[in-house]
């Protein structure tokens, strides 16, 4: 396998770290040395040649090759088995609907939230249980980090360069979750979003930090979901009135009440769509009266339609908690779901 990247020599592991930090090639944490052997192993696992063009970021005409993505994946700690997920997630991020440049350059400071579905979760040891939105397992940690390092190094998305974030949030180190498909009766997110049953897939979403809710004092689905909707209304008030993709994370304790009552993801999305909306006049209650003007009675919904809600079953088995994950800014960037190692909407071969 012929790699095209420039090779550097470092005398020891400490020198490798200093070389990468000094060049601005890290997220501030130590990296795994991207040796040719490690990078080739990733490419071979994904059966992808190094010069395979994953895509071209359209705003700044930046090409992304499999080799460069694999280098960053190795640096993040990925094993070869993780690389197909990174490859698919970055391909999804290059989809026009995701608006990579805007989503990664904006002062809004969002991160790339990734949801894994399908058999690959178990193959790579991705967990959707305890600490799902934190450091739950190796696979989700390194996959999320690989995407950030690739943005830093391939797209120059460094703070103060392309990344103009005012605050950012901790998800910019890594923000990946596996759905807990084994412990729910709900349809997996990827299937809900059009992927075939049983396919492994990733969903990427330009997302703000999670906002955690708690309601362990009811088993009534509408009351449980009202708490999620209220947090979305809070986001409409305190952050942005714009409708977009929101995700809600529903751990097992609350999920079981919803499932026992027969509520599907569709039922949840329809209820949240109706409840997560506010009149513009509420902006006056939170210090934003200057922009209410004569439109106080206008109603703003968090979701343009129910299918814009990403309902994800994940989280540890105990605790009446949940989370909403708001969009970067309305629908400027849209969530994209893509199958791993399969072309779902390709033309069938002729003959």
């Amino acid at each position, binding site marked *: 396998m012929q790699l095209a*990247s420039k090779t550097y020599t470092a005398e*020891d592991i400490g020198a490798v770290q200093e070389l990468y930090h000094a060049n601005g090639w890290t997220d501030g944490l130590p990296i795994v040395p991207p040796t040719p052997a490690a990078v080739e192993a990733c490419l071979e696992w994904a059966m992808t040649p190094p010069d395979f063009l994953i895509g071209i970021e359209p*705003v700044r005409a930046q090409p992304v090759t499999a080799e460069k993505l694999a280098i*960053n994946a190795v640096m993040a700690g990925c094993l070869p088995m993780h690389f197909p997920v990174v490859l698919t997630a970055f391909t999804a991020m290059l989809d026009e609907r995701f608006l990579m440049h805007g989503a990664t350059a904006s002062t809004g400071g969002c991160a790339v939230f990734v949801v894994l579905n399908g058999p690959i979760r178990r193959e790579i040891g991705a967990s959707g249980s305890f600490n799902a939105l934190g450091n739950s397992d190796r696979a989700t940690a390194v996959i999320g980090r690989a995407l950030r390092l690739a943005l830093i190094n391939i797209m*120059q998305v460094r703070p103060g360069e392309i990344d103009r974030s005012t605050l950012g949030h901790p998800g910019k180190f890594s923000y990946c979750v596996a759905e807990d498909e084994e412990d729910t009766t709900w349809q997996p997110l990827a299937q809900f979003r059009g992927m075939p049953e049983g396919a492994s897939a990733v969903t990427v979403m330009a997302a703000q930090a999670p906002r955690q809710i708690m309601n362990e004092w009811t088993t009534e689905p509408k009351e449980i979901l009202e708490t999620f909707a209220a947090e979305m209304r809070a986001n409409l008030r305190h952050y942005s009135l714009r409708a977009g993709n929101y995700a809600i994370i529903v751990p097992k304790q609350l999920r079981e009440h919803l499932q026992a009552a027969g509520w599907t993801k569709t039922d949840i999305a329809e209820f949240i769509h109706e409840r997560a909306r506010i009149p513009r006049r509420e902006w006056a209650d939170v210090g934003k009266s200057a922009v209410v003007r004569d439109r106080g009675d206008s109603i703003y919904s968090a979701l343009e339609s129910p299918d814009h809600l990403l309902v994800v079953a994940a989280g540890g088995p105990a605790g009446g908690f949940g989370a909403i994950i708001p969009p970067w800014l309305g629908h*400027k960037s849209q969530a994209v779901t893509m199958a791993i190692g399969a072309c779902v909407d390709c033309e069938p071969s002729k003959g």
Partner: protein
Amino acid sequence: MTFHVLDPTNESTPPLGQLAPRPGSLRGKTVGFISNGKEGTKGFFAHLDRMLREDYGVANVIFRTKSNYSAPADGYITGEIANWDAVITGIGD
């Protein structure tokens, strides 16, 4: 132990756009503004509009706003640029 490690960056820089010829003077010229539409740009462009007309004798100022402030300018806007003598755009918040 010596390590041989790879450059994680794109290494090559994409070609930059070519700057249009600079006008010798702005007097009597048409200048276009392409705004990203953010709140802070209103006062900035209003002031710049006044300054260009009063101090530099600009004849016309054309004001256009992108439909998505995080995406490139819409095609209908870039299509108009050929009719202007100069265009002002950039990062604004």
